[in-house]
């Protein structure tokens, strides 16, 4: 039977008949019935529970709360054949009476928000500077104390960030250079200059694409992994435990990752360069009908001694950027798992941004130097 509430009486003598399904599962329905009660009452109210079927705790609680709101202290409530827990709930009610305090976050105007934002930027800049400082301090110490190099950790991270990334790096470098070579040869054919597609591939892959693609893939793979691993350790108080045991988390967790990526990213770049040239070469051969000896000749002519190095020299710089941003974001995780997800996202977005920014600066620099 559906739940029902019947209020009758008048003046200061009221009678409330509680009937039907008052179990916990009928809570939503009970709430609706309670909403139908008049907004205020005075006098004596007798609650008759005798027709209520398996009355639950939640519904009984909701009724008590509602009656309290209606009566506002002016009603004397009596229960007739109440379920056992009504007494229990009345005892709890006094303990739960105080509501949830609203948290006071201070003024909230646009100016106040701007001020808080500026301050938080300042704090973050200071925190980041001190993080970089600690990394440098560890590196300086490591020069004199070889144990600080943490070789096992270093090799593990070289494997995880470098070796396991080889397939995806190869695939992407291959496909992208095939695409570039294809588009290039289509355009160059208009001028009858298809042979120059080799120059296009060589310069694009070696100077820019090889290293940039690799850095972006690694930022997505390893930058996020760094942030998530270290962040999860923060949540689990593992970092505090390391500190408490007198170990430096920067030395143990951050520096090995940075060094590992500085080793892995240049190597990956070389592999990406090679597969990129291979992909471009294959397309030139089959699409533009450039024979292999022709290709080799043209390649030798196109590449200046600096071309290869102009790309490769950027790799360690990108590696440091990605690793520092990733580990820093991980160390900033505090308290909640939601923060972990947020910081991981920021790590990837920021490291890709920094990589592209640095690439642009390199381009300007190389032009100035005539590199």
């Amino acid at each position, binding site marked *: 039977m559906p739940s029902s509430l019947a209020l009758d009486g008048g003046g200061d003598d009221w009678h409330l008949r509680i009937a039907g399904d008052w179990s916990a599962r009928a*809570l*939503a329905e009970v709430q609706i019935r309670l909403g139908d009660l008049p907004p205020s009452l005075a006098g004596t109210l007798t609650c008759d529970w005798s027709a209520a079927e398996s009355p639950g705790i939640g519904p009984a609680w909701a009724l008590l*709360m509602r009656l309290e709101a209606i009566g506002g202290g002016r009603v004397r409530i009596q229960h007739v054949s109440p379920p056992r*827990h009504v007494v229990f*709930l009345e005892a709890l009610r006094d303990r739960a009476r*105080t509501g*949830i305090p609203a948290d006071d976050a201070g003024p909230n105007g646009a100016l106040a928000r701007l001020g808080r934002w500026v301050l938080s930027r300042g704090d973050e800049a200071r925190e980041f500077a001190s993080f970089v400082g600690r990394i440098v301090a560890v590196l300086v110490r490591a020069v004199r104390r070889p144990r600080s190099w943490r070789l096992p950790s270093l090799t593990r991270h070289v494997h995880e960030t470098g070796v396991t990334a080889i397939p995806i790096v190869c695939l992407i470098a291959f496909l992208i250079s095939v695409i570039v070579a294809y588009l290039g040869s289509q355009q160059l054919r208009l001028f009858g200059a298809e042979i120059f597609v080799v120059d296009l591939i060589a310069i694009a892959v070696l100077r820019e694409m090889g290293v940039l693609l690799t850095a972006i893939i690694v930022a997505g793979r390893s930058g996020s992994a760094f942030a998530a691993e270290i962040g999860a350790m923060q949540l689990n108080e593992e970092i505090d435990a390391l500190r408490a045991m007198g170990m430096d988390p920067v030395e143990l967790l951050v520096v090995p990752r940075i060094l590992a990526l500085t080793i892995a990213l240049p190597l990956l770049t070389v592999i990406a360069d090679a597969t990129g040239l291979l992909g471009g070469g294959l397309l030139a051969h089959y699409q533009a009908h450039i024979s292999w000896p022709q290709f080799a000749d043209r390649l030798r002519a196109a590449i200046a001694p600096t071309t290869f190095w102009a790309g490769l020299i950027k790799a360690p710089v990108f590696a440091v950027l990605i690793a520092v941003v990733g580990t820093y974001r991980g160390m900033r995780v505090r308290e909640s798992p939601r923060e972990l997800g947020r910081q991981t996202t920021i790590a990837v977005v920021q490291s890709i941004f920094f990589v592209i920014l640095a690439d642009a600066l390199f381009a300007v620099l190389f032009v100035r130097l005539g590199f």
Partner: protein
Amino acid sequence: MFDAAETVIRVRGLVNRFAGQVVHDGLEMEVGAREIFGIVGGSGTGKSVLLRTILGLHPPTAGRVELYGREVGAMSRAERSDVVQRFGVTFQNGALIGSLTVAENVQLPLREYRRLARAALDEQSRLCLAMAGLPPDAAGKYPSQLSGGMTKRAALARALALEPELLFLDEPTAGLDPISAAAFDELLLYLHSQLDLTVVMITHDLDTLFRTCGRVGVILDGKMASGTLDRIVENPHPWIQAYFHGPRARASREGRNG
């Protein structure tokens, strides 16, 4: 709905194996309505795995688990949803959702199974917090801001949200100071007497065991020896003897008899 003689949980011939390691090997267990049943056993004997199996979170290698006479692994979605609303669980580490406040954690099952307005949700979560003995100002806190004892209570509050008939507690007093642990025992006994609960509790805490449990089941070599505390204590198995008659057990037993 169920008379006292009714069996709520029935486990028959349970086998659980992980990569060659046999955790349960023909385990039998039965829990009747309205009893407080304690599960004990050394670390790594598979207490938590047993709990997860009963809850249907872990498909057993072999054997049969019944909740309210229905086999756990073979329930339809509707049956499952019905049974889920009849039990509440607290996990060993609390397992509160870290990105939600305590009040929101408690409201989580209510949002899923009842259609309530915001105010009604707040009202119900206040009730659950009060039942679990938490102060009202705990409502707005995040799990990371709670002490160990408050975490256990918040987990209990969430487990109580749907007014379960059956409560599973995994080491509810582990890591609490003796006073908080004793308070938890009293709270549990009180709720048990008020709400007609059936409680299945994993515990290492002898004081809790002697204070609250009617029957206990001891996991030994992948099987369970169960019975009333007085009977189990007399069991000659060396582990049971060491457990119940070790130096730490004496005080607890005296506390109970005295």
